[in-house]
């Protein structure tokens, strides 16, 4: 099947929406309320496009393609309609991008820039809401909310908790927990998938607040270190510190994570981290337990001591008097080397990992 997209012939799949077809053709249609894993809602009206023969503009996220359809995604009419939508949103949005965590990574900011909206032309009252800092995971600032509904649909459609919903009408509409209680006291399980989906700075991980601008962070692809689902993640780093973790696209998780994968990384920087090798003090009594019986050593000293201890038993008693436990958290490469060390360098099958526990 073929359509004419901004004057170019493009092959499309039947059943695709205009937005999906444009995405695969590399044409970006602006959007606020669309998220790949959620059903399209058509709420934000930013994705309107012109379709030859159609009355008025149509929403690209909900309109399916048809054979021979002629589509303009950025005609002057379309651009005017988008400007109206953006103007309304910006008029009711705090323009404090200087110190917004989303600055540089904000769909509203990007589109306002693209369509030349400097400030809103409506000067009615602007929504004013207190920042909600009550849960330990993310900060909620509904003053910045554009009511795209991604968080609400994420919690309902994907997570199945429905911890939050729209409350109120018209100008006073807000996202809220039932009775406005803290998420701590709601059905929320702090997966943070809503935070990742939020296109603006309304939902922000606390670890990011005041820590890094979007353009200062490098994003490194990784895999969650917790359970066996193996969710793909992007680790956001500034100056050798993790700032936040987000879900990445993989067949394992399709950008979703749970609370551990997204918010469970601070152990990496914890003050308890061992930063130097330790060797038991010569005067430590046999079986004495605890930090006080250790002193710091160089790697050379520690490795020599470790090898000497293992070799003494291997050579003195026999290879089967040595055993090793590998780790179900270490990589494939490390597990492979570990068992190779026990089997080839020591000569025993006394190797296992704690899969069973």
């Amino acid at each position, binding site marked *: 099947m073929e359509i004419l997209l901004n004057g170019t012939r493009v092959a499309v799949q039947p059943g695709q929406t205009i937005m999906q077809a444009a995405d695969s053709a590399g044409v970006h249609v602006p959007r606020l309320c669309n998220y790949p894993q959620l059903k399209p809602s058509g709420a934000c009206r930013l994705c309107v496009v012109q379709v030859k023969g159609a009355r008025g503009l149509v929403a690209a996220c909900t309109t399916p393609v048809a054979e021979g359809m002629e589509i303009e995604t950025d005609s002057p009419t379309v651009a005017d309609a988008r400007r109206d939508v953006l103007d309304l949103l910006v008029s009711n949005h705090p323009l404090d991008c200087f110190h917004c965590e989303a600055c540089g990574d904000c769909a509203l900011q990007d589109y306002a820039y693209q369509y030349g909206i400097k400030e809103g032309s409506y000067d009615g009252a602007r929504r004013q809401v207190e920042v909600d800092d009550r849960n330990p995971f993310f900060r909620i600032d509904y003053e910045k909310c554009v009511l795209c509904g991604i968080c609400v649909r994420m919690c309902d459609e994907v997570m199945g908790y429905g911890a939050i919903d729209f409350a109120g009408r018209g100008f006073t509409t807000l996202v809220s927990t039932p009775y406005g209680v803290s998420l701590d006291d709601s059905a929320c399980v702090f997966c943070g998938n809503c935070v990742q989906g939020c296109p603006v700075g309304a939902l922000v991980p606390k670890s990011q607040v005041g820590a890094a601008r979007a353009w200062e962070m490098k994003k490194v692809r990784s895999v969650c270190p917790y359970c066996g689902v193996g969710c793909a993640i992007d680790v956001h780093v500034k100056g050798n510190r993790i700032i936040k973790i987000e879900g990445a696209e993989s067949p394992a998780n399709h950008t979703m994570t749970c609370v551990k994968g997204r918010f469970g990384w601070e152990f990496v920087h914890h003050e308890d981290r061992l930063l130097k090798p330790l060797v038991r003090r010569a005067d430590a009594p046999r079986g004495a337990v605890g930090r006080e019986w250790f002193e710091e050593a160089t790697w050379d000293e520690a*490795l020599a001591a470790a090898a000497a201890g293992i070799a003494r038993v291997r050579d003195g008693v026999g290879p089967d008097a040595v055993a090793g436990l590998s780790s179900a958290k270490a990589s494939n490469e490390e597990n492979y080397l570990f068992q190779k060390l026990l089997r080839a360098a020591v000569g025993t099958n006394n190797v296992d990992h704690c899969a069973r526990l």
Partner: protein
Amino acid sequence: MTNSLDEIADANTILIIGSNTTESHPVASLRVKEAVRRGANLIVIDPRPIEVAEAATHWLQPLPGTNVAVLQGMMNHILTTDLWNMEFVDSRTEGFAEFVASLDGRTPEWAASVSGVDAGLIRAAAEAYATAERSTILYAMGVTQHSTGTDGVLTLANLAMLTGQIGRPGTGVNPLRGQNNVQGSSDMGALYDTLPGYRKVNDAAARTALAQAWGVADLPAQPGAAASELPDRIMAGEIRALYLMGENIALTDPDANHTRKALTRLEFLVVQDLFLTETAAFADVILPACSWAEKEGTFTNTERRVQRFYQALEPLGESRPDWQIIVELSARLGYPMPCASPQAIMAEIAATVPQYGGIAYERLGEAGLQWPCPTPDHPGTPILHREKFARGLGRFSAVTFRPSAELPDAEFPFVFTTGRSLYHYHSGSMTRRARPLAEHRPDAYAEMDPATGSAMGLQDGDLIRVTSRRGEVTVPVRLVPGTGSKVIFMPFHFREASANLLTNTVLDPVARIPELKVCAVRVEVAQA
């Protein structure tokens, strides 16, 4: 898993057994929810009132330790009502007659009398599983951490073969692995009885091939000691030196007091870890390893998907990646390993492990590859056992139900069972050092049925002392409706109230997994 995570969403019936899916494998549970929204049946066999149980169309709440009986009752019903898949059984399996004989008398009523589950519910669940176009089984430690864990797994395989619910999309017998690379550790042969690629250590041909690849004369042919056997072997003086890479056995072993005693008996202990764990405190040498964020490599997830992770940080302090430490140590043991990088190690793995033959860093991309992937142009294998089983015909196992090793009695009247909570993980050495998680769920707790609790005059947060034949812990109680009047549950992440001071070390005879899910305890009100 025999099948892939995404297929769960397309199943018509999902049978979850011994898996607290929403808390232990939250992102896998999203597929379960998706299927249920589309109208799938959800059968949950679990003693605790967990979230998936509450969402289930059929919740079977057996006494801990009676999974096998419930499944046998289901299979007995499937046989007597002719809901089994004759074509599949005839063409794909063997051992059917002995299997059928083993179900003699294992009626739903018998299963009900053993497990406490209503016989009608057992029948309904059997029908929902057997008659659906696509039925899938998800299971976790609630099946395996029993002295009869192997029987549990074999019984699940029996059920899938009996109904032909395997080898097709949306079906299968699917273990949800607990730790992020349990699958990979096993694939790589970090096991006492198998070499990399699941070849037995007594397989002479496999040993010769590996010995040649590794440049040694021969490899040991006798199976070694399983992790769960180490404490006893150490106490017997057979094992004198231990090298631990990131395992905190002083907290995660059952009957942890026994393990701690064994650690003091060692002649030499090397611990390689991020933290000075409860276990590291016993060591002679502690080697500081760096976290996953400070190195690169691959993990293999529960659906056999090999995925790359990249280095995000420079190693903190003087810590080093585990692989570098192993290479250094090996050289000092007189066996230099010629491995310059994780990528080079993967090349060696591809050359020596048949299932990983086609795995190479440059092929992995964002989606990774699912093994078996034997050759460089193989696309990977999302579904196992499609045309035939790995061994040819699928073998039915005749299983006899055995009760748990330690059952409640007059002195220890409650069944004690352990598990995970959503916000913490394993020994807690990672999650309890992640501030938001620790803040949100700081404390240990034990769950108890409100009726039982109030009969003892307890309220939420009151301290109780839980005692087994091996130890005792004092912990605040949470009264959770539906827990079951004879059941006490505790998560095992908390060092100040370590559930594993109570648990039983008795092992499954085949898998050598300890019975962490069932022991007998008594409960008393403790003074604050």
